[in-house]
């Protein structure tokens, strides 16, 4: 046991070393940290409440007004504040989605991979069926059934996200369960559950973590896209995707309405994908190419 702990520790050390030598990964870490900081402290950081309306300050351009460095939107709300609160919406949606995906996908994938047989068959077929659905169309359909709002979006996106986690977990467990230390553990009479939870899942964690970290930008993208199509969170909650979508009608004159949330989405996605790539390189150095 202690032997396995030390190898894990040195592995972790190695991973951290590899990660800290990766410049892009550090940039990613910084960006993600910054966005998370904005999301957590939006109330303190933003100069105005996200829903505060000034009817005499509708559609100001950046620097038009000293109190609104990034201008105001079509209803007269401070754009900087809405951008900061938008980070909160993006993080809330994407992190919840990946959390739910992990909570559902991990046990289901692990059970299927470990016990095999009929259980595996059923779960694999469910995964097959879910994979066959065009993800965006399916999400739109589910949102029309459930009726919109932030909770609905989280639920709808989770439904298509857990599949990825389940599939990766299953594949990992499938290969790991035949390895020596499992056979050994079984030999000394460890229970199946103990083997699964103490040995297999911890060892399968790296690719799963990578999948989660890469799933976050996917969820951000999806939230933005749905909001762009008008299926997103309710007003006056700020969402970058919704801001881009609404700016469609204003952009010819008020270009800042489109440019700023676009940049926010791009930077966040960039941050998470650099971070995800970095994690992959650090945790899984052998397999460089993997979706």
């Amino acid at each position, binding site marked *: 046991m202690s032997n396995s702990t030390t190898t894990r520790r040195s592995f972790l050390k190695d991973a951290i070393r590899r990660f800290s030598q990766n410049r*892009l990964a550090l940039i990613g870490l910084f960006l993600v940290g910054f966005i998370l900081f904005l999301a957590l402290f939006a109330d303190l950081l933003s100069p105005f409440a996200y829903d505060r309306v000034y009817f005499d300050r509708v559609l100001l351009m950046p620097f038009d007004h000293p109190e609104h460095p990034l201008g105001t939107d079509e209803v007269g709300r401070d754009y900087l504040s809405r951008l900061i609160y938008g980070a909160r919406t993006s993080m809330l949606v994407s992190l919840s989605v990946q959390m739910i995906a992990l909570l559902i996908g991990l046990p289901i994938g692990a059970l299927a991979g470990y016990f095999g047989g009929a259980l595996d068959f059923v779960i*694999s*077929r469910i*995964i*097959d*069926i879910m*994979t*066959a*659905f*065009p993800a*965006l*169309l*399916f999400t*739109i*359909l*589910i949102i*029309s*059934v459930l009726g919109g709002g932030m909770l609905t979006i989280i639920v709808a996106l989770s439904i298509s996200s857990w599949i990825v986690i389940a*599939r990766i977990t*299953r*594949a990992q467990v499938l290969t790991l369960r035949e390895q020596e230390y499992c056979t050994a553990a079984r030999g000394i009479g460890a229970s199946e559950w103990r083997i699964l939870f103490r040995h297999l899942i911890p060892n399968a964690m790296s690719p799963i973590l990578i999948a989660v970290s890469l799933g976050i*930008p996917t969820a951000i*993208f999806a939230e*933005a*896209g749905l909001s*762009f*199509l008008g299926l997103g969170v309710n007003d006056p909650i700020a969402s970058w995707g919704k801001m*881009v979508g609404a700016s*469609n009608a204003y*952009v*010819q004159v008020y*270009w800042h309405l*489109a440019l700023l949330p*676009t940049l926010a*989405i*791009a930077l966040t*996605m*960039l941050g998470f*994908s*650099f971070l995800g790539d970095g994690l992959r390189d650090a945790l899984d150095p052998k397999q*460089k*190419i993997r*979706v």
Partner: protein
Amino acid sequence: MLGYICGRILALMMILLAVSVIVFSLMHSVPGGPFDERKGRLPPAAKANILKKYGLDQPVWKQYINYMSHAVRFDFGIPYQRPHTTVAKLISKSWAITVQVGLTTIVVAFGFGILAGVYAAYHQNSWIDTLVTFVSSLGVTVPNFVVAMWLILVFAVSLDWLPMGGWGSSGQCLIDKYFCTDWILPVVAYAIAPMAIVARYTRASIVEVMGEDYVRTARAKGLSEVKVMRKHVFRNAQIPMVTALGTEIPNLITGSIFIESTFRINGLGKYFVTSTLNRDYPMIMATFLLVAFLWGILYLLTDIAYTMIDPRVRLGAKSLS
């Protein structure tokens, strides 16, 4: 091999069946129907007439059986949005456009993507490599509806070089109604993300292969660079490329809701949105089934392609693709 393929096709049929049940029950649980109550409630008799006209007066399970019994004979009904045509005709017409968009995009994305990837890999750690890495990261991260909007603003509105939208209707085409000036913006907007993915894949796989012993050996043997690249590097770098193709192609040929609505292209993606908004049940069903079918078939083709380029891969060996 043949048995394996038959098994996969059978599995696909079962999946389609499951998809049809799920979609049918989901879409019927959305409020509203193919009638308009914008002004107020319809008189009960009038509403009953409309429901009867579309066969919606029966219980949902009966409607489902009714639909499926026609669908297996490739009769997908009449779209509520276009009562003078059939779903099959409307889908084939709109899908033809989507496929044109998709195929052009694939050619552009894979052509430029592979080129950039190879170049970057060959000149590892040069400034071009950094540029490719950066641009491709950007390409993956900026949503295509955002790219589309900026392309329109710059090239159509400000510079007035290209039409804002349409597909094959700009009047300036290479061949008849194909490869027109109005193809450029949608294809560029659509191709950027897959191009970035392909470039990243290509670069990564070539870099990996170039580090392998057999390549070093080949170099050491004095083989010319071009020959090394062609005989060893490309050959082995094909597998990840096929993986990328396999996941990107179904996406590309089933169309993008964002691209089609932004560039006013009457493809499949646009119809999905209008069908959902209008509760056009026959079109919703047909779109889902078509997309699910295409995904299934293309996954199968990808797997077959694996065996052709890499004899080590045996079909049927993996239980889950």
